[in-house]
Structure formats: structure tokens, C-alpha cells
């Protein structure tokens, strides 16, 4: 480990790995630190990602793709189900990854591009100079070392501390933290090409239960519920256990995963003097789906690009780094985050009767020319009782 780098990346998930790879490709000296002793574990993810987004960062490889998804199915509280197939979902089709292998591949690519990588190495404090971030004190297998850097990229995930130490308030509101649990279930009857989403205020309040195929007879079966709906006897894991007892009573749990996903708006500002925040640490998970991998990679790449320009100019102050914040906010991703936040805020108000009505209508539609907008238009015609919510939804979507 050198005493000085152009860029220090805190966190070895997809956001950090892409940031380090991009920084190294741009000719910067880059160092990525990961507090855990191995990259990719423990997995804390449902592992779904859109095909096209992924291809923008890495060539798909069977070694880390568990399943290719051709369609999605939505199940209402009353059991009505609605399917969206490949030809209608367009670019929405995707993969279920094997994050253990995927994350390692990304970090290996960062290493191959020239970045230094250190595991079991944790940032314990920023090096601050008159409020400017100048690197970090890191604990390297228990030994404290100072690592100076022009820019620190905080990619430290949902449990992010680095940005907070530098003065940014990263607190996720309780109601906007999805409390999640997931099992990898083996030996279950599933369609290996379809993701299934179960909705209902009884089974998953303000969230959903997912079944994401991991191959033949194997799936990630998980749940996310709003933090404000979580309490003793009614926690994510307990609700998931109830669902599994009903739906997959013979499934064998080969992995137990828990985690938190933010569904709040992103941090109001994702840069400071010498600091950039990416991915889940910047609260950039999609508020509608909870997906975070794509946005972490997108912002990791953008951040490293802007860092390279700023370092080239010799100015890594907040105003110089602000181009990163502007870039992601005005991107397709940034706009979709805001749109999906507003859709989520409407969705969480729907009671089970309304969720049933929505999915019943959807299941009766001829979805040849499917788009969410045409679906909402059709719903407005057929569900006069829901006109208010649907009007709001239509206003967000159009």
C-alpha cells in the first residue's frame, strides 16, 4: 500500500470496483479498500439487473449469471396474477447474477487496469485538512495507516459511514428503509425464466416479496417491508417465513441473507471538497424496485471520470467535483430515480382492494403494446374508485 494515491475508493462492491477500474483506465493511481476479508461475500442482494445496463459495463459471462429472465409475473393479494413477457417488456429483461463471482470479476478488472486492491482494510476516519478530505486513515488487518488521496470515492454501501464522517447527513428515514430478508431456496417448483413479485399489505407492507430464479429449481426468495411496518412478531424474516411455509413448504434454505435498502430520495449533495459518494452510500437504490447494482456502477463510472478531470485541473474542491452530482441528476438514471420515487409514494398508499383491482385489470388487458402508461390509462377507465391515485400516477408517468 502506497502512502499516496490520486483516488482512494472505499468499498469493493460494484460501485467501488467500477470507480477504481475507470480511474485506473484514465491513468490515475487508484486504490480500492474493502473492509471484509473477501470480495463478493456476504451477498446482500436479490441479484437482479437489466441486460442492457449491465452490458454497458461488462460483457455478460455465464460464470456469474445464474439465470436469464424473459418475463415477470405480478401477484395480487387475492392471488390474481398478471404476466409481462419478453416481447412486451422490451429492454426490461435481465439477468439474475451470482454476486459472489460477479463482484470478484469487477474487482479483478479494476486490478488488471492497474488499481491497487486491499481487503480486510477498513477506513476508520477521513484525513481532514481545514474541512477538505485529503484521504483516509485505514485499518489494514488491524494496523492503522494513513493513505493520502486527492479524491476519496465513498462506495461503502447502505452502512456507509465515510460521507457522514465528512459532514454529509446520510441518515435514511425509518419509513424509507426497507427491512429485507432473503433465502436462497433449493428444490422448489419455479419457472426458471420468470421473476415473480407478490404484493399485499398483509404479506409485505409497503414492499413486496420476490422470487428471482437462480437456475433450475432454485431461487432467491425474499421480502422487503417498510421500516415503519417492522416490529416484534412482524419482522421481515418472520413474514418471509410465513410466506415460504405457505408457498414453498418443501424448499431447502441454502443461504440466509438480511439487509437494508433505502427507498428515499438521494443525498441532497453527493460531493464535498475531495469527496464523492456513489451507489447505495449516496442512497441511489431505485425507490420503486430497490435495485441498486446498476445505479452504483453508473455513478462509480461518472465519479471516476469527473475525478480524473478535476485532478487534471489541479482543483478537487466541491465546485470542481460538482459536475458529477449534476451529471447523474440530469441523466436518464437521475430522472428515473425521481419519477420512481413519486410512483413509490403513490403505490404505498394502495390498500389490498386497490392492489387487487390493479392487477385484475392488468391481467385482462391485451398487453401486445404494453407500456406502463397505457396500462394506467386502461386502469383509469376500469377502476373509477381509484381515479385519484391513478390520476396522480398518470401525472408522474406522462
Amino acid at each position, binding site marked *: 500500500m502506497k502512502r499516496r494515491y490520486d483516488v482512494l475508493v472505499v468499498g469493493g462492491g460494484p460501485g467501488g470496483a467500477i470507480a477504481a477500474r475507470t480511474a485506473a483506465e484514465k491513468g490515475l493511481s487508484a486504490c480500492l479498500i474493502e*473492509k*471484509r*476479508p473477501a470480495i463478493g461475500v*456476504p451477498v*446482500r442482494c436479490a441479484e437482479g439487473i437489466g441486460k442492457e445496463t449491465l452490458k454497458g459495463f461488462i460483457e455478460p459471462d455465464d460464470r456469474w449469471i445464474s439465470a436469464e429472465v424473459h418475463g415477470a409475473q405480478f401477484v395480487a393479494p387475492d392471488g390474481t396474477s398478471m404476466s409481462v413477457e419478453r416481447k412486451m417488456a422490451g429492454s426490461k429483461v435481465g439477468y439474475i447474477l451470482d454476486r459472489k463471482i460477479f463482484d470478484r470479476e469487477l474487482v479483478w478488472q479494476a486490478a488488471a487496469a492497474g488499481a491497487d486492491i486491499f481487503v*480486510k482494510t*477498513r477506513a476508520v476516519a477521513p484525513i481532514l485538512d481545514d474541512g477538505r478530505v485529503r484521504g483516509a486513515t485505514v485499518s489494514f488487518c488491524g494496523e492503522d495507516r494513513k493513505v493520502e488521496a486527492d479524491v476519496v470515492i465513498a462506495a461503502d*454501501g*447502505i*452502512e*456507509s*459511514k465515510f460521507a*457522514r464522517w465528512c459532514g454529509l447527513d*446520510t*441518515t*435514511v*428515514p*425509518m419509513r424509507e*428503509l426497507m*427491512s*429485507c*430478508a432473503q433465502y436462497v431456496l433449493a428444490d422448489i417448483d419455479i419457472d426458471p425464466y420468470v421473476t415473480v413479485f407478490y404484493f399485499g399489505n398483509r404479506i409485505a407492507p409497503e414492499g413486496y416479496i420476490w422470487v428471482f430464479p437462480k437456475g433450475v429449481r432454485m431461487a432467491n426468495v425474499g421480502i422487503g417491508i417498510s*421500516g*415503519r411496518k*417492522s*416490529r*416484534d412478531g412482524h*419482522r*421481515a*424474516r418472520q413474514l418471509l417465513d410465513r410466506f415460504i411455509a405457505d408457498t414453498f413448504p418443501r424448499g431447502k434454505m441454502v443461504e*440466509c*441473507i*438480511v*439487509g*437494508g435498502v*433505502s427507498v428515499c430520495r438521494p443525498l441532497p449533495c453527493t460531493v464535498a471538497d475531495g469527496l464523492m459518494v456513489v451507489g447505495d452510500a449516496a442512497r441511489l437504490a431505485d425507490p420503486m424496485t430497490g435495485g441498486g447494482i446498476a445505479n452504483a456502477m453508473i455513478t462509480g463510472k461518472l465519479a471516476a471520470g469527473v475525478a480524473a478531470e478535476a485532478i487534471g485541473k489541479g482543483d478537487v474542491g466541491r465546485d470542481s467535483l460538482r459536475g458529477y452530482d449534476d451529471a447523474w441528476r440530469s441523466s436518464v438514471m437521475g430522472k428515473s430515480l425521481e419519477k420512481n420515487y413519486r410512483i413509490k409514494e403513490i403505490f404505498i398508499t394502495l390498500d389490498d382492494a386497490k392492489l387487487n383491482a390493479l392487477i385484475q385489470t392488468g391481467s385482462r388487458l391485451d398487453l401486445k403494446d404494453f407500456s406502463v402508461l397505457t396500462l394506467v390509462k386502461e386502469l383509469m377507465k376500469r377502476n373509477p374508485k381509484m381515479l385519484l391515485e391513478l390520476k396522480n400516477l398518470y401525472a408522474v408517468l406522462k
Partner: protein
Amino acid sequence: MLVIHRDICGYCGACVSVCPEGALELIDAYLTVDDRCTACRICTRICPLGALEVADEATV
């Protein structure tokens, strides 16, 4: 004070993200709490496993 039931904790860090004081930190598989904790109970609510509990000073 906040009690961490380590046999239950899944060391996922969800609690760290909601702590308004920044009192919690996840060090690999080990959750820590420091004296900034105000026993506000937000973390005890959102824990997916129920590993956190605010115990009465007298009973600890």
C-alpha cells in the same frame, strides 16, 4: 442502553443507515454501538431479525 444480540444479528448494516446519531458501525461481521446512542429505538424497529433491544439500565 442498546443491547446487541450477537447470536441473532445478521451483520447487514441496515441499522447503521437509520441511526440519526451515527452511533452504530458495522465492522465486517461485528456491529458496534458507541456512547452517542440515545436509545431512540429506530434501529430496534427496523432490524430484519430483531437483534437489537433497548434494555432498562436497571435490568442490565
